């Protein structure tokens, strides 16, 4: 059994609870031990880097230093946190002398999606699939920060990523080749310019529907939140009706691997996935 430090981040304690729960659930099945960082603090998110560059780096470094004390690798489920950590890591790598920090740059920072898509783990996933998600057409939605900027994320096919699609294929689902995988949903404007968020999310929902997707899958808390919780108001604003569940990829992993709690995770969605999953015979 492998052990990892775990930094859930603020959203996973609230709006993205099902993400947190499903990650823990999936790790349990895959026998990955997660140890939540003690006394972690917010990464600073957009607000920090929009306000002050120094503050943004320091807020991230504090958590990295904590993880370093714990040793080994740090699993980060939220892309925003992940991105902030990677930026801080780069800063330390390039300008260590400018920072007073305990952090030595030794933590291997892992974004949850990349982590589960890695070759070593994906074979294990394949073994553990008990309910293949046959007939489920999914539009994988990566969003911005999980792939961009590539010098931070190290994702090679950052315009047309494939790793989540591959993972979905292994779960038995049918990933669709749509070309909006990495478009922005307006995430950081979630509270302030909801009009922009609605417009961008509307475009994404439309395109997923055109691709005849049954649902969207993501690994970003903000994307999930924007696309799931606002579907009704977007529908009203643009005179359409959407019924596209938006899953965290870990939820679908849990479903395919037969986790006992999947119903509880799905119950947290505002766009109810149960109807779809029953129609596909994936849930009773």
């Amino acid at each position, binding site marked *: 059994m492998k052990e990892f430090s775990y930094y859930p981040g603020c959203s996973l304690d609230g709006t993205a609870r099902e993400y947190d729960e499903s990650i823990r659930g999936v790790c349990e099945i895959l026998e990955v031990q997660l140890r939540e960082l003690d006394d972690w*603090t917010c990464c600073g998110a957009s607000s920090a880097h929009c306000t*002050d560059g120094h503050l943004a780096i320091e807020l991230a470094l504090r958590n990295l230093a904590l993880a370093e004390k714990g040793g080994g690798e740090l699993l980060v489920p939220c892309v925003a946190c992940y991105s902030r950590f990677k930026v801080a890591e780069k800063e330390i790598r390039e300008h260590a002398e400018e920072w007073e920090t305990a952090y030595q740059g030794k933590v291997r920072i892992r974004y949850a999606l990349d982590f589960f898509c890695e070759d070593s783990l994906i074979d294990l996933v394949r073994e553990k699939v008990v309910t293949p998600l046959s007939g489920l057409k999914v539009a994988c939605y990566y969003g911005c920060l999980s792939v961009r900027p590539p010098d931070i994320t190290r994702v090679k096919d950052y315009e047309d990523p494939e790793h989540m699609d591959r993972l979905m294929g292994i779960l038995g689902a049918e990933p669709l080749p749509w070309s909006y995988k990495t478009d922005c949903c*307006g995430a950081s404007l979630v509270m302030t310019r909801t009009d922009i968020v609605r417009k961008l999310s509307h475009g994404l929902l439309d395109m997923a529907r055109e691709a005849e997707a049954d649902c969207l899958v993501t690994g970003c808390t903000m994307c999930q939140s924007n696309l799931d919780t606002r579907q009704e108001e977007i529908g009203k604003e643009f005179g359409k009706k959407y019924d596209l569940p938006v899953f965290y990829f870990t939820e679908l992993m849990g479903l395919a691997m037969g986790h006992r709690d999947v119903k509880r995770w799905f119950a947290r969605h505002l766009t109810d996935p149960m109807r779809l999953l029953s129609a596909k015979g994936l849930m009773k």
Partner: protein
Amino acid sequence: MGVKGIKIEGHAAATDPSFLDLVAQEGGENLLACYQCQKCSAGCPVAYAMDILPNQVIRMVQFGLRERVLTSNTIWICASCYTCSVRCPNDIDIAKTMDVLRHIALKSGVKLAERDIPIFHSVFLDSIKSKGRIHELGLIWQYKAKTRDFMKDAALGWKMFRKGKIKLLPSKFGGGKEIRGIFSRYGKGK
């Protein structure tokens, strides 16, 4: 700062040749490399909501149109999605430049466009400063109190609460003294 050579209609006294240097200093990006291909603007998902397009921001910085840039809504509307930075043929990190412009705007005391966005950021940071973490409900309420827009997303909040997505009370605090230390250094250097 007088008009050295160039007069731009509507900006009679507003050119500041040192602005470009200031931006470069704060962000380290060579904005002069830009040849105005407009790829950044063409690919920007939120450009439609901006009063100045990203490529125009670069142009204005080059021409020293300081006020115009710092009071634009563009620098706040930018969603930091990095689409522009990734595709710029001159390798200019435009998203990073937007950050730098926000920093300068906040420090310079100009009247900010998109009032709500800086308010949100400040509320957000206050939340970190006091609790180490973000308590989403608390954040929402403080933001609404400051912007005095209590109706925004009201129905949505209730739905999310029902689904267990919003917690009434923060589950844990973190950071303590350390966080306050970080915030005390806030605004110094980088």
